[in-house]
């Protein structure tokens, strides 16, 4: 399977995502923000970091990058898109995901490894997982406090769009939301960093389970074709 990692000025988890994907034996293309070519990848990762310095609002400026037009088209055609941390923020700003991420409730940046619960196991991103599974995942963000109005929240719940939730809410997110998907289930936004949880020596291996889910799902889907 071929992954693509978008590189914005200020991205800083782009190489980590590439590392994780390759560690799992998959190929990876880096997608420069000024370009308009997704290089035929099967899954786009929008990595963490501080695109454009996160000035104004996290993700507010990145959404206008030329590559994003292609990402939106790709997503609308059903392509797999994973926005991690800053990538989640960008996906909400560009409108692929509902809601918005605001400053952590205590206004502090938080770096830690924390338990996250799987809420929906019917998605490509949780293909190998079970609802209720607890994953220990790294987080590192200052603006991860997910907000959506009550009506939007109802919709998220009704459609099963909440995919991950925090066991102990670190940032004030509504409904302890740690990750959501779009209605189609092909676009994921999550604050925790699965690409950092790929080796025990780094403190966690649970991130691998999410990436492997995507890979297995992809393999199965193409096998049945």
């Amino acid at each position, binding site marked *: 399977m071929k992954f693509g990692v978008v590189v914005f000025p200020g991205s*800083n988890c782009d190489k*980590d995502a590439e590392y994780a994907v390759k560690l799992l034996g998959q190929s990876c293309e880096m997608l420069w923000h000024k370009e308009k070519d997704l290089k035929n990848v099967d899954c786009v990762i929008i990595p963490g970091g501080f695109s454009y*310095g996160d000035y104004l609002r996290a993700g507010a400026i990145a959404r206008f990058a030329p590559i994003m037009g292609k990402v939106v088209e790709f997503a609308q055609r059903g392509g797999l898109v994973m926005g991690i941390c800053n990538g989640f923020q960008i996906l909400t700003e560009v409108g692929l995901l509902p809601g918005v991420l605001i400053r952590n409730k205590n206004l*502090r940046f938080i*770096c830690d490894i924390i338990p996250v619960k799987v809420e929906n196991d019917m998605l490509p991103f949780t293909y190998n997982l079970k609802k209720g599974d607890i994953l220990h995942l790294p987080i590192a963000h200052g603006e991860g406090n997910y907000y959506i109005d009550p009506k939007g929240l109802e919709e998220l719940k009704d459609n099963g769009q909440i995919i991950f939730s925090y066991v102990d809410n670190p940032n004030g997110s509504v409904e302890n939301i740690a990750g959501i998907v779009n209605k189609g289930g092909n676009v994921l936004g999550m604050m925790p960093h699965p690409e*950092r949880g790929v080796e025990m*020596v780094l403190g966690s291996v649970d991130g691998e389970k999410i990436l492997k889910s995507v890979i297995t799902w992809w393999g199965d889907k193409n096998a049945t074709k």
Partner: protein
Amino acid sequence: MLQNKTENYKLAGLTEEEYKKILEDLGREPNPLELSMYGVLWSEHCSYKHTKKLLKYFPTEGERVVQGPGENAGVLDGGEGLGIVFKIESHNHPSAVEPYQGAATGVGGIVRDIFSMGARPVALLNSLRFGPLDKQRNRYLMTGVVKGIGDYGNCLGIPDVGGEVYFHPCYNENPLVNAMCLGLVQIDKIKKGVAQGVGNVVMLVGATTGRDGIKGASFASANLEEDNEDKRPSVQVGDPFMEKLLLEACMELVDNPYVVGVQDLGAAGLTSSACEMAARGGSGLELDLDKVHVREKDMSAMEIMLSESQERMLYVVEPQGVEEVKKVFRKWDLEAREIGKVTDSGKIEIYYQGKLEGSIPTKSIVDGVPLRNPLREKPKYIEEKGKETPKDLELNYNEVLRKLISDENICSRKWVYSCYDYMVGNNTVLRPGDTVGAVRIQGTTKAIGLTVDCNPLYPYLEPYHGGKMVVLESYRNLVAAGFQPLGITNCLNYPNPEEPENYYVLEQSIKGIAEACRELNTPVTGGNVSLYNQGVDTKIYPTPVIGMVGLIEDYNKCVTTSFKGEGEVIYLVGE
């Protein structure tokens, strides 16, 4: 003008002796621009006039030393062509005035030192000292400093893998903020801060040059545009996003064969980087300030030369490489301007608006400062404190334990390091909370262990032995975690060296550090000196912060601090 001369050199921070030396070196009177350039380069901060002789005590050679003191950072040989680049630097004074920006720009500065060597920064550490937290101002300082360090390093994506925080009333007026950075480079690709090759092009890259950071002490600042409401801030504002772009662009140029030298612009801005690069190359420079991309209109030559605007680098490039270099910076949306060329005049010649505004012999301004030899006197308190006996110990162990673990100097530091992204990069194998921090070297089984440490009580009570003990502590930390210690960098934070007692302590503790380094075979590859950390009511304890690096061949064998399971036996080792 003439009768103002004394005042002028004093305003520039120079002594009469120094001024006479300048007259001698120049063979004439310096003009205001030249005088203020001398003023900043001959300041303690840039010239080490009080400590140059003392730093000679340090062992700086060893089989692993690739680059000792004198460059932007030191380099050790990590085996198989791997260069371990590291340095520590203080940003004490700016952080006392503006904790957030002061600490942030401190991180920015040390990171630029590392990547100017061609190394990719892979880890940060920091060593912090404040007055006790029952004082509101100390809480304010600490909150700002921690946030400043976090925001800057997090944005750059460099994991912060360790550090220390210590509280004592002696830091009430002078908090200490020392930042250390580690980078990795292929030894044959190391870049140096050198300007060489007549006709080679000097390029200023990165952020615009503004009026920030122009030293209030500089005598010329009185002539700055009068505008009372907006007093010129002497504090710079950092832009980590700009630095991240600069970092990535510089990394792309590591393999470029046309790049002759690189240096970052730190204290004293263009003045120090241009002069130092020329001095290392034994050359001269011709600078055309009209080419500098400035942030504000109508800046004077002096303002451009002294500006401490952050996120800027100076490149020396062979003419045929200039377009390529520009192309890389353009890719990262950065400005790169040709602002001058290398000459064989042995002088720094500054042109502005078609006129020669200054001409200074390189050797004079960089190495010409008369060194000081202050008086030493053993402080009386040392004898007195030596005679004190411990007070009666409290015997209620539960109570003692509770007091200990709730002490602000002992309790968990998680509230500090959880503000730092310590995992970015996928290399952090020992995280904050362990004895030392460690990052692995991707593609190998090796990891580098890092620690910054200083218990200031040791050098305060026993300057010489205390100096040794500070090094030993770092050494023990690394060994305990399974690392072979390789070398150190240090940040000497001390009070006013012109007081004999202070100078005695400074000299003795340096001798102690040197002795320990020699015995342990951990040479000193660089460091930083911060003197005059003294206020109206307090002066800091001698605080020589040691940053030590070590190597482990297999990172799976790192030893973490925690107890691993029930029933395990606990040993106390040592005498």
